[in-house]
């Protein structure tokens, strides 16, 4: 049985850049524990020597000539930004160091 704790959930949330509210933490702890307990059944499947499938068509690698092609214009790329310095073509973010 999975014994997921609130501390585990806080650690995962930090990895995922999610600042959960105090209501969400116990709820997600319970719900994620339910799901992980359910997924425990996979441990009973014998997978000795079975390769992993990451992708059903992985065997067919796709290559193309390395030729330059037009990319999205800077103005279009910035158009949806919550905060952009349009003149200099930059995304603006809050200070990095807290």
């Amino acid at each position, binding site marked *: 049985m999975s014994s997921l704790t609130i501390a585990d959930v806080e650690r995962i949330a930090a990895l995922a850049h999610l*600042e959960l509210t105090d209501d969400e933490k116990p709820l997600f702890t319970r*719900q994620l524990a339910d799901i992980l307990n359910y997924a425990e059944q996979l441990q009973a499947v014998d997978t000795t020597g079975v390769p992993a499938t990451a992708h059903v068509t992985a065997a067919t690698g796709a290559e193309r000539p390395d030729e330059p092609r037009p990319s999205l214009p800077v103005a279009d790329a910035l158009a949806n930004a919550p905060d952009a310095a349009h003149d200099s073509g930059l995304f603006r973010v809050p200070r990095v*160091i807290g």
Partner: protein
Amino acid sequence: MTLVDRTARDLRQDIAAGSISAVEACRATLDRMSSVNPALNAFNHVDGERALARAAAIDRQRAAGERLGPLAGVPIALKDNMCVRGMRTTASSKILDSFIPPYDATVVNRLESAGAVIVGKTNCDEFAMGSSNENSAYGPVHNPWNLDATPGGSSGGSAAAVAARCVPLAFGSDTGGSIRQPASFCGVVGLKPTYGRVSRYGLLAFASSLDQIGPFARTVGDAAIALSIIAGHDPNDATSATTDVIDYAAGLNGDIRGVRVGVPRAFVSEGVDHRVRTAFDAALATLRDRGATLVDIELPHAKFAIPVYYLIATAEASSNLARYDGVKYGYRSPAAKDGPLKTMYSRTRDEGFGAEVKRRIMLGTYVLSAGYYDAFYLKAQQVRTLVRRDYEQAFASVDVVAMPTSPVPPFKLGEKTADPLQMYLGDVFTVSVNLAGLPGVNIPCGLSEGLPIGFQLIGRMFDEATILRVADAFERATDWHTATPPLD
């Protein structure tokens, strides 16, 4: 029969013949949408002006004697996770509430080149994560057959829009059943093509090894026409297949004599509602009466497909959704405008994503994290191989596999939202098909207490032709597809 009742094929023929104009067809669709959508909430966004301008252009092409595309003047709707340049695209998420794509998805290019007229974007579960359309930031979609019932998910708006005669064709995406299950709940045809058959360029990514775009229609013939248009290699999607695209509609000859239909008896014997079982058994009997041979098969690992799916899909989602950080597009939390940056990221993501999306990001992050990767993620990928091998073995002796699409008829809105695991268990018959990369199609096969029931046909990789031929033969032998929801 009114304009909105017509199939895409008939509508296109009438427009090409000049008996109706594309503008008339477009107006009929927009009128229908404004009359039924307030009750359904199937559309996140309608752009009547753009649609009428496109329709007028088709009428001018016809008047000038130009060659018309195979969907010339046919109104269509797209799930709100496909990018249309200049048209708001939200994935039903607050985090993309204001997003205006700067480019078109490849399917959009192909459909518009074929003459289709996009009338709007349909409601769905947020980032296509859900089985009831209740995870939308814009409220649930209501089932046209019973407004208290869910239309299914995640492409619930597209399914409801076709069932409600808003459009003859709509498009959705299917990662674990998100086309087939809502098609089943709304009583329409829904096709998930083979993984790689249709380009995913411009589809907002959920789980990249599973996602696939496909059509909803009221007839198998219309779904086949749509597939021939959207299928094919795309240099912008390295996973799109180079396998030849055929005229899928041309192969619908009604003849299924000798086709071997595999039925995984043990897998479908448990946990299936008696109403679904009755409809499924009757569907199998119909296929046999039309000359198909029923063959018992085993899919011994299919029962593990739900845990495998929810570990792999969430792992991929946690990575794909890392891009929503309040910097390049979409919502940014006002809470941390003076920083630090990390707090801006985490507040933006907590406020911008809904509960189910957060749960899945958390689960995916957990199974990919140090100490759990081998036990959960790698193990799931290995069992995925076993699920695929089961199908490969089955297809050595059968041509298609038949299963119910959903183990239960459409359930009530609100019935399952408190327990995510219970909601996941409803995906039992759809997720294995995505894990194996196979094509699957839902066909209506019953009505119970006024709510639709469907079943699915699953084919070999890139053999959409056979499942569509069998589905079409079933449609010819039955009249479930002609039933209309009591909306008016």
